[in-house]
């Protein structure tokens, strides 16, 4: 398949302007006759649905949750990047663009990333106008903080609940349009197929999760804003319901899946505690602004800590190894996520881990308590403050900044992080890979778009912190509303699309058959059993470190899991009614197929880049070793009918504005 990315000609900083000036428009009277379906109501989906409705299109939006406000964007903690340069620290559109390309280890498209940086400032303006309560300083202006992989402070935040506040902002814009009747909102609905007629997306098949009814919905365009596929690992920081089903079903109908092996393992998550665990919890990257990461310098200390014979607070400074500060003096604790995660794994694999499982490192705020405490003492003129008073004042400052995160930690671990350092370990968090889209965010199915985490386009092989919220809102508010018109301009005389077309009938039939076959296999094993098994294989062999041998083994294991799943899974309950086990089973079936594709993609990419670390390709210091002359491309996989035999298509990546070099944070 030939991949045409539709990137406009001209200088980088003119491309988006030029595109907007020449894209075709749909006049208001015609917009009223055009239907658009938006699947998913996270940052990308809610902002897209609200914007399209406001422009005059007739929008139908779906979410599987009981309310659009609950999409998992809500859980994003740390912040959102924007090139506002309010801090006057040298930030600019170009620098945000440059940091993102470099952070992504030179595996993202220049034009898309530049556009993202260009519209970033508008996002903040938009959200403030909507009443999003960002953090402010005492002058009443917006505050910023710093995040990994950058040397400026460009991250806007709302305590540790930035995602919640931004999503509620987008949800309020969406609610306004629902109230006006411009959006029909379908809660507790799950998309199960895209209907393609004459090569164009013309609607979807969805299941009403309350009644079990299989429904046909037609539209002139379908927008998938269905998030990432991190739950393929079973244990991840994703919500329990986050899934790949909508994207995967579109993939099966002709949308290519790009760079599926590019997954982000986030360095600061609460470690696994036992086999009952259903999900993992992230501790915001913003904590690395003030927390220092360390493990004991000597193995005997690590062993004593693991045996609970030694407390971390009793270990002398010169017996601690602040390994990120040691290895990466320029960026220290704020290296990008992939680098920080690998470094934690390296120390733990070498025997320096600090909890019972040996898979945890410390994130320690002691020096921040002291630094902030001294600052407070100076501000308050308390020149004779005791050490304890200083620490107490410092703790108050830290509580102001991260109080809810400290509280969250204590609830889960039952240890007070103000008194003893937090324990953290990397966990699956985000997926850079996703549906292949062109510059207009259209997939390889005409009229089917993908926005936000569901597409692959902006983060290359590693996403920088606070950039997911930026991309979700950029796509939904400021990119798709322009690009979709360029396609819909051809649809003004199409008229209402009938759901009686044979393609709708066939797609519905297909979904029904799948459901029936899941019920009629006489299995005895719950869905979660298979999901856990799949997740463990992918974590062990397609997680933080990958190898040819391991990936080949994983592929054969996944094929066995697939066979076992369809033979032995048990779906209790009824088809025509609320049935969460059925929902899970359909999602796990798709995760199994996706998991195999991830391993194939990782196996095919004989290099290390970003979150994709192949053990065979590393420098002497253990850093990722890219092979640019061979692998400087987007791997876009085509479904053939057999999930074990996909076809690889390649879109070469061209760097005209940035010199591709090896990434260094030293």
């Amino acid at each position, binding site marked *: 398949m030939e991949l045409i990315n539709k990137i406009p000609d001209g200088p980088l900083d003119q491309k988006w302007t030029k595109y907007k000036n020449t894209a075709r428009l749909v006049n208001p009277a015609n917009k009223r006759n055009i239907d658009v379906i938006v699947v998913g109501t996270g940052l990308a989906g809610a902002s897209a649905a609200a914007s399209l409705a406001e422009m005059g299109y007739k929008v139908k939006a779906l979410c599987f949750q009981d309310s659009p406000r609950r999409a*998992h964007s809500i859980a994003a903690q740390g912040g959102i990047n924007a090139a506002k340069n309010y801090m006057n620290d040298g930030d600019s559109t170009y620098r945000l663009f440059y940091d993102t390309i470099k952070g992504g280890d030179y595996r993202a498209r220049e034009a898309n990333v530049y556009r993202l940086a260009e519209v970033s400032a508008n996002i903040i303006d938009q959200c403030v106008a909507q009443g999003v309560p960002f953090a402010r300083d005492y002058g009443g202006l917006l505050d910023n903080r710093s995040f990994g992989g950058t040397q400026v402070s460009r991250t806007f935040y709302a305590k540790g609940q930035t995602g919640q506040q931004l999503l509620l902002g987008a949800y309020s814009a969406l609610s306004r349009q629902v109230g006006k009747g411009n959006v029909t909102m379908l809660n507790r609905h799950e998309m199960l197929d895209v209907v393609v007629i004459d090569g164009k997306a013309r609607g979807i098949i969805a299941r009403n999760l309350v009644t079990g009814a299989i429904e046909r919905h037609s539209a002139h365009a379908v927008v998938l804003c269905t998030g990432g596929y991190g739950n393929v690992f079973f244990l991840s920081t994703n919500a329990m319901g986050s899934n790949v089903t909508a994207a995967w079903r579109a993939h099966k109908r002709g949308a290519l899946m790009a760079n599926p092996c590019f997954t982000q393992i986030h360095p600061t998550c609460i470690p696994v505690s036992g086999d009952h665990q259903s999900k993992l919890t992230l501790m915001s990257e913003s904590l690395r602004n003030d927390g220092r990461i360390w493990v004991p310098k000597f193995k005997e200390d690590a062993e004593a800590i693991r045996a609970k014979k030694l407390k971390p607070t009793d270990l002398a400074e010169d017996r601690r190894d602040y390994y990120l500060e040691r290895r990466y003096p320029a960026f220290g604790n704020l290296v990008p996520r992939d680098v920080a995660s690998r470094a934690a794994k390296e120390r733990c694999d070498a025997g320096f881990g600090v909890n019972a499982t040996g898979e945890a490192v410390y994130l320690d705020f002691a020096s921040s308590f002291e630094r902030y405490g001294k600052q407070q003492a100076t501000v308050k003129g308390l020149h004779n403050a005791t050490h304890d008073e200083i620490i107490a004042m410092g703790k108050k400052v830290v509580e102001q900044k991260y109080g809810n995160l400290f509280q969250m930690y204590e609830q889960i671990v039952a240890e007070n992080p103000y008194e003893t350092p937090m324990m953290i370990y990397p966990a699956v968090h985000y997926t850079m890979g996703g549906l292949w889209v062109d510059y207009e965010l259209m997939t390889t199915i005409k009229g089917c778009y993908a926005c936000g985490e569901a597409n692959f386009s902006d983060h290359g092989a590693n996403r920088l912190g606070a950039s997911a919220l930026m991309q979700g809102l950029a796509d939904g508010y400021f990119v798709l509303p322009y690009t979709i018109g360029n396609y819909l301009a051809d649809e003004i005389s199409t008229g209402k699309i009938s759901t009686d077309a044979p393609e709708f009938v066939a797609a519905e039939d297909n979904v029904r058959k799948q459901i029936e076959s899941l019920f009629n296999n006489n299995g005895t094993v719950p869905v979660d059993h298979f999901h856990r098994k799949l997740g463990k294989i992918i974590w062990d062999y397609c997680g933080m470190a990958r190898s040819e041998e391991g990936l080949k083994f994983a592929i054969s294991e996944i094929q066995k899991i697939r066979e076992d799943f369809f033979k032995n899974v048990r779906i209790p309950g009824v088809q025509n009614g609320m049935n969460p086990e059925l929902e899970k089973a359909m999602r796990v079936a798709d995760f199994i197929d996706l998991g195999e594709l991830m391993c194939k993609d990782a196996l095919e990419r004989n290099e290390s880049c970003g979150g994709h670390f192949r053990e065979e390709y590393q420098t002497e210091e253990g850093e990722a070793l890219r092979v640019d002359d061979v692998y400087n491309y987007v791997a876009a996989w085509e479904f053939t009918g057999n999930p074990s035999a996909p076809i690889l298509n390649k879109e070469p990546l061209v760097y005209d504005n940035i010199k591709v070099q090896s990434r260094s944070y030293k």
Partner: protein
Amino acid sequence: MTTLKYNHVVINNNMENGMNLTLKVWRQANAEAQGQMTEYKLGNVSPDMSFLEMMDVLNDELIRKGEDPVTFDHDCREGICGMCSMFINGEAHGPNRGVTTCQLHMRSFKDGDTIYIEPWRSAGFPVVKDLMVDRSAFDRIQQAGGFVSVNTSGRTLDANAIPVPKADADKAFDAATCIGCGACVASCPNGSAMLFVGAKVSQFALLPQGHPERFDRVENMVKQMDEEGFGNCSNIGACEVQCPKSISIENIARMNREYMAANLKG
């Protein structure tokens, strides 16, 4: 003793400390069906499990026995999406303050405990199945006015052209942390949604961006709240206590002031 090999490390789950529990769970096949409490015995519950993970274990057992698992709402499992509910031993989100059910851990219970698990009970929240209720009334209240009417073009003022005093911004933020779970309604003897509505009204009333529409907003949201069948506030304060985000009933007072001001304005 169960084991899980997790990236080359074996985690031992020592079940010697496992608890034995009696669960009394509300089972209701659908909105129209008659419901009843059903008793289940569950053994080997680890104190490190979250409450929902304990429910997962129960469901796993039920499915293996060929029975229908208990339906309950849940998603993020980190206390922010507001999807989980459950009335546990007569309290919304269980015995601990400032947490949702998914953040409640079994270490808050002891071996031999009997735990009563019910859905939110309120006229405004009809039961869908078992412990799952329909909270779409909250969406409709939001649609009636819980927004600032700004279009999504991004062509607004520069963000820093609207300075907001830090104290107001912080109060607006505290109100905005509402997760829309409905614990306030479930805890209120009147089934009142005024903490939920008050929090949203307050967020916008405290910010300059919300001022142009402040009176229409409060009138429209309160009207919708009443139409949904929620009761009135009689200053009992259970909502504030049970709110997993500890949202203050000050927000109800602020909503009442806004509402009165809107009425006086005519």
